[in-house]
């Protein structure tokens, strides 16, 4: 369980998170939706300690990750895998080296075992025979899959996805969403997905939280969000120009 309580975060004069509260349940897929620039990625980075809140608490399984020693933070980070918006594959390494890297650095597995785990992780995301390619030789969808394989290779308890389908065509989007669902069903990790993909994300997530004006406006099952009476949520889902979100701009 990840617990976020009364988190505030500003960058200079710009207030991004303003007393945000959220509980992320174990073993489920939680989607964080909301307009662009509202701080969804900022929130995601707070969950893994890449950003520290100005005030408030973030706890993973009851352990705080705010203002803790680096060694302590790293111990908690071992529970996580993360797929970045731009994938963040190491561009000077091959696909194999990228996926093998966490295994080489965090385990004492033999070279043969690492090879087996990497091939298996790549097969899990539907990739074969691309181990020797470099990231810049791959398509956007393939990069996302390699990123997912790297995030999953240590079998983390929690995986964070920062806009996993941005910039992809509708078919690959669907394939990535299906992949997340399938791997979640297979491994049972806790997933947090930052996404703009309406309505597809309602089919992927079991919980949805709408971030607006630095707070979670509403949090619940996809049905609850779809049928919400909140004007901002209704406007965001329907994509209309008139409403409170438009008034913000």
């Amino acid at each position, binding site marked *: 369980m990840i617990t976020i309580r009364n988190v505030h975060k500003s960058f200079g004069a710009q207030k991004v998170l303003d007393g945000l509260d959220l509980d992320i349940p174990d073993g489920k897929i939680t989607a964080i939706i909301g307009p662009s620039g509202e701080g969804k990625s900022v929130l995601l980075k707070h969950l*893994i300690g*890449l950003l520290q809140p100005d005030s408030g608490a973030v706890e993973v399984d009851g352990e705080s990750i705010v203002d803790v020693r680096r060694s302590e933070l*790293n111990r908690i980070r071992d529970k996580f895998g993360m797929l970045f918006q*731009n994938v*963040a594959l190491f561009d000077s390494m091959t696909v194999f080296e990228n996926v093998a890297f*966490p295994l080489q650095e*965090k385990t004492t597995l033999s070279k043969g075992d690492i090879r087996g785990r990497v091939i298996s992780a790549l097969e899990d995301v539907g990739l074969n025979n691309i181990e020797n390619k470099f990231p810049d030789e791959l398509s956007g969808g393939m990069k996302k899959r390699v990123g997912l394989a790297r995030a999953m290779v240590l079998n983390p308890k929690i995986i964070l996805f920062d806009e996993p389908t941005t910039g992809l065509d509708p078919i690959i989007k669907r394939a990535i969403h299906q992949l997340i669902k399938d791997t979640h069903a297979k491994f049972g990790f806790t997933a947090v997905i930052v996404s703009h993909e309406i309505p597809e994300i309602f089919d992927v997530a079991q919980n949805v939280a709408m971030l607006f004006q630095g707070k979670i406006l509403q949090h619940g099952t996809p049905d609850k969000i779809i049928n919400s009476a909140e004007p901002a949520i209704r406007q965001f889902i329907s994509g209309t120009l008139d409403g409170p979100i438009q008034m913000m701009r």
Partner: protein
Amino acid sequence: MVQTLGHITIGVVRDLGRTGWFLLYSLYMIVRRPGSFVHVLKQLRFIGTKSLFVIVLTGAFTGMVLGLQGYYTLTKFGSEGMLGTAVALSLIRELGPVLTALMVTGRAGSAITAEIGIMRITEQIDALETMALDPFKYLVTPKFIAAMISLPLLCAIFDVIGIYGGWLVGVKLLGVNPGAYFYEMEKSVVWRDVYSGFVKSFSFGVIIAWIACYKGYYAGHGAEGVSKATTESVVLTSVIILIWDYFLTSVLL
């Protein structure tokens, strides 16, 4: 006005603190977790081996121009036999370490800043952090170790090539006695001269790795941020090298 001045002062103090912390943490990591031997070897190849050509070239021409200038100055006093001493001392004590450091700054320092800066803006450094791995171990300490080893060696090569460049011009082209060139040099150059050159180039290695890594690590946003960081890295490193050279010279003389 006062508020702006206050903001600027706070910004400068914060940056200075962060820069100092970066150096201390890097040195701490060298002792604590120096990174893999393979990473250090790769950086030795990049900073050291790949700088050889430019060092040999600049060393040769620096020695040649010293030979030329030294000859015309020394003949005025009838002391052209001292040419070897003049060339060797200028190179070993001063020009070797400084020019080697400036060449490596231009060739490798800028590339280090750009590499780490690109890794910063493409979230590759964040990716390392999310894997609970310390980015310093992979990106910073191998470069520090490689620069600290490479600079004194490159400087030694620069000195030797430069001495032979001076010999080529002084002895072969201008007719200085070859025995006098090397004999006077051997008589005048003492261990302390070599030692001071070594200390300088070693410390310049630390400065190059420090500023190049720091500027890349804290590069701003986008391509413009990396470009700005790279320019600042080269300018700041060059300036610090020259200032530090003055202080070291005044201590080591």
